[in-house]
């Protein structure tokens, strides 16, 4: 019995340390999340810290009402902290992504965690009071409590957040709490039937948090959050690509296979120049339009500003993207629900296949594919593809193509121009500065006589970037972006993929 005692004291003091560390970690997790998502980090941290300390006080106060079977209570409270604290980050993210009640959940979790942690220290004091005298007990327990807080506050910004990410940090400390609970069941004499129940509960919680640590957040968190530079509020792997939506205080961003597609900060620039110069070049009211790629619905949003639009076919290969932008509230707020407009038909099919099948001629075709970084996407930048596109728009239609950056990938950009010309288009290349991307290139194209438009067909008050003065400037290229010799991109060599990869490697090294 005395021998066992010798282990019990250090073990319990050790658990004080773990509890103190994890308590502060949960507090930091909540504060960080709140400032990421809601912005205004001073207010958020101040609220979280205040609430948390208050809740701890509340817990300490309530501890006086706990009587009998203190060990059982301690184990159960510890498991409660493990669950609530451990799952706090994933829960909060999920809630934010689906636009649930984020604030009530955040403050609720802070209060619950604080209260449970507040209950524990007095309970531990009561458990230890038989082996240590009061003076020594208070000194050691409170001392360790504050050391634990220091360790947590040092570890969190330096090691935990950068290397584990917010999900795994939260789950890891939950797991540690549950481990403390589990260890406690071995140190104290507990009645057999209650012992079994407690241990089963411990194992269940450990398994839940442990599997959560390894499965749920393995890819999302550690690697991607670092890579994307902001928390991920939505991510999924479709058969074609990985779709990631991130959120920081200022902006929502979409990544496909790690490649930035838009940032809510400046996407209006990109989509205004994609759509409105083409409509202007059409020289008549646009009625039927075709959008290839662009499953985010942002180009469609711009098109729908023209009351003359009767029908838009949006062809995007990946239902994961179009479904996300039809259902995720965050995304619908950006595209104004354009994909659900009755004039829009979403077709989840290969754009190549769509053009090969017979279809009605369109006034406008907007081509907004990801950059030609692999051979599958590269096929959509070949002469064969542009021939099919030319058949679809006929002699009266206008085409606009996003064609990567003439600044970062100058030869690639002009390769697309050369290829479109080889397919029989007359082109009017243009570019615009989109801060998230840099200088970005587009190609307006059509039959003989296609030329840069001189006047917009929309009132600039509806727009944020384009107006009559900016429009002509888009079509003028400074010397360092100007035309260079480039080969025709054909299906059987896809020179563009190699050129593009080589050119971008310089900038992403």
């Amino acid at each position: 019995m005395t021998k066992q005692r010798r282990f019990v004291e250090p073990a319990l003091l050790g658990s004080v340390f773990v509890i103190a560390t994890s308590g502060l970690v949960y507090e930091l997790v909540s504060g960080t999340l709140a400032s990421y998502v809601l912005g205004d980090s001073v207010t958020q941290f101040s609220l979280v810290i205040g609430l948390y300390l208050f809740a701890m006080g509340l817990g300490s106060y309530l501890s006086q009402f706990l009587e009998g079977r203190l060990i059982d209570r301690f184990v159960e409270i510890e498991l409660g902290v493990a669950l609530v604290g451990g799952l706090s980050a994933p829960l909060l993210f999920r809630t934010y992504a689906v636009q649930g009640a984020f604030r009530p959940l955040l403050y609720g979790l802070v209060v619950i965690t604080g209260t449970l942690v507040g209950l524990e220290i007095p309970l531990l004091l009561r458990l230890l009071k038989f082996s240590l005298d009061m003076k020594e007990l208070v000194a050691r327990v409170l001392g360790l409590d504050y050391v634990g807080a220091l360790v947590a506050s040092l570890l969190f910004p330096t090691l935990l957040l950068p290397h584990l990410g917010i999900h795994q940090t939260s789950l890891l400390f939950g797991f540690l709490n549950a481990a403390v609970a589990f260890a406690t069941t071995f140190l104290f004499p507990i009645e057999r039937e209650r012992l079994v129940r407690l241990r089963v509960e411990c194992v269940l919680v450990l398994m839940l948090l442990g599997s959560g640590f390894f499965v749920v957040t393995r890819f999302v968190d550690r690697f991607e959050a670092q890579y994307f530079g902001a928390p991920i509020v939505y991510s999924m792997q479709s058969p074609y690509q990985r779709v990631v939506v991130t959120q920081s205080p200022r902006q929502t961003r979409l990544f496909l296979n790690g490649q930035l597609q838009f940032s809510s900060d400046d996407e209006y620039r990109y989509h205004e120049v994609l759509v409105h110069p083409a409509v202007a070049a059409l020289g008549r009211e646009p009625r039927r339009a075709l959008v290839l790629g662009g499953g985010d619905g942002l180009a469609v949003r711009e098109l729908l500003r023209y009351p003359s639009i009767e029908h838009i076919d949006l062809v995007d290969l990946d239902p994961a993207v179009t479904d996300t932008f039809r259902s995720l509230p965050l995304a619908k707020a950006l595209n104004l629900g354009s994909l659900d407009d009755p004039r829009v038909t979403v077709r989840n099919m290969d754009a190549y296949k769509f053009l090969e099948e017979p279809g009605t001629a369109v006034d406008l075709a907007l081509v907004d594919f990801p950059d030609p970084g692999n051979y599958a996407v590269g096929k959509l930048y070949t002469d064969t593809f542009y021939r099919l596109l030319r058949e679809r728009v006929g002699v009266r239609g206008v085409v606009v193509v996003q064609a990567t950056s003439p600044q970062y990938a100058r030869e690639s950009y002009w390769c697309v121009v050369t290829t479109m010309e080889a397919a029989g288009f007359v082109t009017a290349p243009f570019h615009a500065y989109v801060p998230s991307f840099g200088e970005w290139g587009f190609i307006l194209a059509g039959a003989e006589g296609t030329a840069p438009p001189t006047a917009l067909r929309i009132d600039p008050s509806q727009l944020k970037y384009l107006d009559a003065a900016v429009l002509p400037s888009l079509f003028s290229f400074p010397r360092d972006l100007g035309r260079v010799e480039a080969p025709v991109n054909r299906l059987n060599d896809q020179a563009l993929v190699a050129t593009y990869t080589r050119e971008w490697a310089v900038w992403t090294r």
Partner: protein
Amino acid sequence: MQRRAFLSAVAGGWVASSVLPDRRPVHGRIMGASHSVGHALRGNDARPAALNPADIDAALPGREIAAPAPFPDRTDVLIVGGGASGLSAAWRLAALGVESVVCELEPFVGGTSTYGTAGASAHPWGAHYLAAPNPEARAALRLLREMGVVTGWDAAGRPMFDGRHLCHAPEERLFYAGEWWQGLVPVDALTADEREEMRRFRSIADEWTTRIGSDGRPAFDIPVRLSSKDPDVLALDRRSFAEWLTANRFTSPFVRWYVRYAVLDDYGGEPETISAWAGLHYFAARKLKSQELLGSHFLVWPEGNGRLIRELCERSQANVYTNALVTSLTEERGSVRATVLNAYTGERRTIEARAAVLAIPAFVASKITRIGGAPWPKRTASPWVVANLHTGWPANPDLPWDSVLFDAKGLGYVHAQHQQTVVTEQPVVTYYRAYGDADVAGARQSLLAKPWIALAEEIIADLMPAHPHIRDEVERMDIMVWGHAMPRPEPGFLGSDPFAGSPLISERIAWAHVDQAGIALFEEAQDRGVRAAEAVAPLVGKDPGETWL
């Protein structure tokens, strides 16, 4: 107690999964060329075991016509053999308005260009690409033009192609020294000597490509009958390609492997067993070098050359009878009589025709006609194994069409869905292995005796270096054993009078098969089929008019 049970269960599972070898069963079966039926021809009048209908794969072309249909009593032209030559003859005759009947021994059409449709994608069961034909291969170009693959001719008279049918990039990769390299030559991994030898080999091949013989013809051409008869060029046929390589100091392991891979792929023979003329023909016969072909000059379809077979069938509206084994063919009083065995029912029937085209290899043709003095060349036929692997691989946009493993036994695999614009999961890949050494009879016997599992294990072992988990990744593997896949152009195969002769072997019977040329190329088969059709057309009262050749 519970905890212990839990832990021991976990530990037990771990032990089982790490110690016991994982033998997840791969499913599949042997499809195949009907050896038992074909071998009935060996005995005089032996009756083969009737085919079991269940053995006929619904996914093979011609299955819908495999049901016992009564053979017709008579027709204008009887075509024996439903491969590329026979169907090309039917295609030519249909254009002249001549009625023909095609009798095919197998339950499927297409011969070694046949294909399957089971699973996620159509896939080849044999020949899987057509290199952009030379302008002289006019029959092949006519078919491609009808298909829309050739879109027209440029100012220099060269055919232009619809880019959708040329092999999309990336075309090929090589597994060499433990990793995949783009292209078949891993330049960065070779020694300086190997690179230099490779460069020298290419420059010699280029010289031969443009060389014109003393008779004004190109040294090598396709169809081969258009090649030069310059004795200096023909002298190459007197020795093996291996001897030529050694004599020209091509000795580095990589270059020898590269050349071996190429000739095995086209001729089913090792450099030691094929003629140096044929070896150089492989590297120097393709003359078309237009801008659009710089990327790849291979025409590729999911079902391989099965696409061409389908088109020939459709365009000729041929009356094809499968499971129809012609056991004898005789000529008397201005007509031709064939005895045809329905391998499905065992029933025999006589078909009378005004003329016949024998579109079958020499060793079979000689057995059923017994025409004295007919010019049957003695050909060695290489055995092949073709397997279709239905994989569970994830979508990979950069998976090339052709994947080759350095120093493997087989020739690697091609990806059936490569030309699709959509990236597909679970690709179907077709594995090839040619048995190229001298002992073809031994190889054939051993292959035909092997059960499916033995063949499948050999294929898995062959791919293992590049795909360590291939056993777990293959859902299904069907295997076709081709006992006599293609003629092998052995030294001396051109004979004493190369490229000569009429297709007619008697008054009313023409022979059309790649055995005549000794090289199994689609253009060659077409050339022979069309030539035979034009030779028999006057016998049924039709003027063939301007030749398609």
